[in-house]
């Protein structure tokens, strides 16, 4: 009776002996590529530093500096505006296209292929392509996308729509195809019009897809970097009364990047503090999504 209690499945026991092989590489790389930089990043946000080895603790002053930075504030509101406007446009169009493509129109597959295509192109290249197009148009009016904030804003929105509508469309199509055909037929027999069927039967049944896409486009909008950098790079800039500048089309990620690498190295602590704030923001959105979908799953 003195033998130790078995841990159930003895296959597991045999597998455990190989933990080093199965987990080793990922744990090592994950530590290098994520865990350690993350911890160090949190620590450095409370420090003054130029390089990682000369850090001195300064408390929360980095955070105070970050929050007081007008360019950071501006980039936050600019990012929020971009994210919300793109969210609405992308989802409305993506859903409309997905709905149209599930009506059994000839050539649906071809359309789907074309709409999704921009997703494969990287953000930098996208930015380059669209800056050429916008400048091609605006040059006829003797202006450029780099000269006016509103051009930069709507330019970026158009670019995001072009890139992401196809992506969201795929998710919506999957959602729409999962709605049982007989449910729609039942609605028809019950006398619902096409619009009633859409709003009363179909949309409630694709709510999970709508939730996913909403959060996805929101976080995409907040994390946007490559496209922002390549399209306008933050230009045009405004000179503040105190002599500092605000890049008017600069989003959060680019603002953090510029604070790290394109201003004095003394600002790196501030930049890291901004990065932590940014992380909290984006992670908050992610957790909200998780909590929301969990709740729905429980309800279903």
């Amino acid at each position, binding site marked *: 009776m003195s033998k130790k209690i078995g841990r159930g499945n003895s*296959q*597991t026991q*045999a597998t*455990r002996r190989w933990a080093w*092989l*199965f*987990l080793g590489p*990922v*744990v090592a*790389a*994950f*530590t*290098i*590529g*994520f865990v350690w*930089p*993350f911890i*160090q*990043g949190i620590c450095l946000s409370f420090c003054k530093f130029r390089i*990682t080895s000369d850090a001195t603790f300064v408390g929360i002053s980095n955070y105070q500096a970050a929050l007081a930075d007008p360019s950071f504030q501006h980039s936050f509101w600019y990012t929020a505006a971009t994210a919300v406007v793109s969210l609405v446009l992308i989802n409305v169009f993506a859903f409309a296209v997905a709905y*149209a493509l599930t*009506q*059994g*129109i000839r050539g649906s597959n*071809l*359309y789907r*292929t*074309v*709409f*999704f*295509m*921009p*997703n*494969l192109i*990287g*953000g*930098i*290249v996208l930015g*380059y*392509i669209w800056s*050429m*197009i916008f400048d*091609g148009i605006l*040059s006829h009016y003797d202006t450029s996308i780099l000269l006016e904030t509103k051009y930069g804003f709507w330019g970026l929105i158009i670019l995001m729509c072009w890139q992401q509508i196809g992506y969201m469309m*795929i*998710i919506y199509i999957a959602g729409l195809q999962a709605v049982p055909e007989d449910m729609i037929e039942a609605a028809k027999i019950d006398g619902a019009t096409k619009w009633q069927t859409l709003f009363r039967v179909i949309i409630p049944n694709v709510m999970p897809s709508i939730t996913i896409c909403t959060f996805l486009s929101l976080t995409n909008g907040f*994390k946007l*970097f490559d496209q922002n*950098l390549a399209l306008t790079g933050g230009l045009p800039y405004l000179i503040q009364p105190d002599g500092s500048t605000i890049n008017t089309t600069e989003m*959060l990620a680019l603002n*953090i*990047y510029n604070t790290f690498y394109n201003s004095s190295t003394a600002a*790196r602590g501030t930049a*890291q503090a901004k*990065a932590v704030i*940014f*992380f909290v923001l*984006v*992670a908050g959105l992610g*957790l909200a999504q998780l909590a929301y979908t969990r709740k729905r799953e429980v309800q279903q």
Partner: protein
Amino acid sequence: MDKQQTLAAERRNKAILSVVLAAICILWVLPVVAVVINSFKLNTFVKTDTFALPTSESWAGMANFVKGMTFGNYPFKSSVLYSVVITVLSTGLILVFCSMAAWYIARVDSLFCKAIYFLCVFSMVVPFQMVMFTLSKTADVLKLNTPWTIPIVYLGFGAGLAIFMFVGFVKSIPLEIEEAAAIDGCGPVRTFFSVVLPMLKPTLISVGILEIMWVWNDYLLPVLVLDINKYRTIPIHIQYLKGSYGTVDLGATMALILLSIIPVIIFYLACQKHIIKGVAAGAVKG
């Protein structure tokens, strides 16, 4: 009578819808068409006559492509090479090691596994800016700043999504198959490689596609980690061309962009079905 009318109306609606969709479709390919057109134009005409077809006056022919090869103080050939090396190695590493780790995590019930899994899910919501400075320093110290070693950084930063997706799939595989393998004579390592890995094929494809799309197009991570004077991937190369805006030859740039899009589009058309499936799977999970 009534029924005929509704059917006719439905047909008409469908026809209108088709026309609208076709129009949007054309709009959708226009930017790419613009790239193609302008890659054959002389520099000065790109900006002024962006949407005009090349004329005898603006036609540059293949000269843009020839010029593009050595353009921007960096050989385009090398960019392509490095992009391919980094993408292939990173995706390979991620697929092999993350599927192994995911199987272990899904099958062994320990606190350590739970912790790793939690960290993986957590890492999926952490934006790159949070770790970019410290990660690039760490990578420098560990000499992970070459195209041959940067895949380790990708494995580390990309492990989250891959492990999350693999764990989800492994849990749907009945345990009995692995038990049968154990009775048939497999140890854990063999069980994984001869029995589990082949069953993971659909997820391997999905994850592989997501990783390829990410790594191939990624700009910020390589630009911060790699030694830019020596190693530039395609996105870095193109962004650095733009750095010298105004003096840059737009025609030649478009030629380069065209060259960098073509393989992507071929890849897309070749594995379209898998890509769309993979993206949908990744989105629903993430």
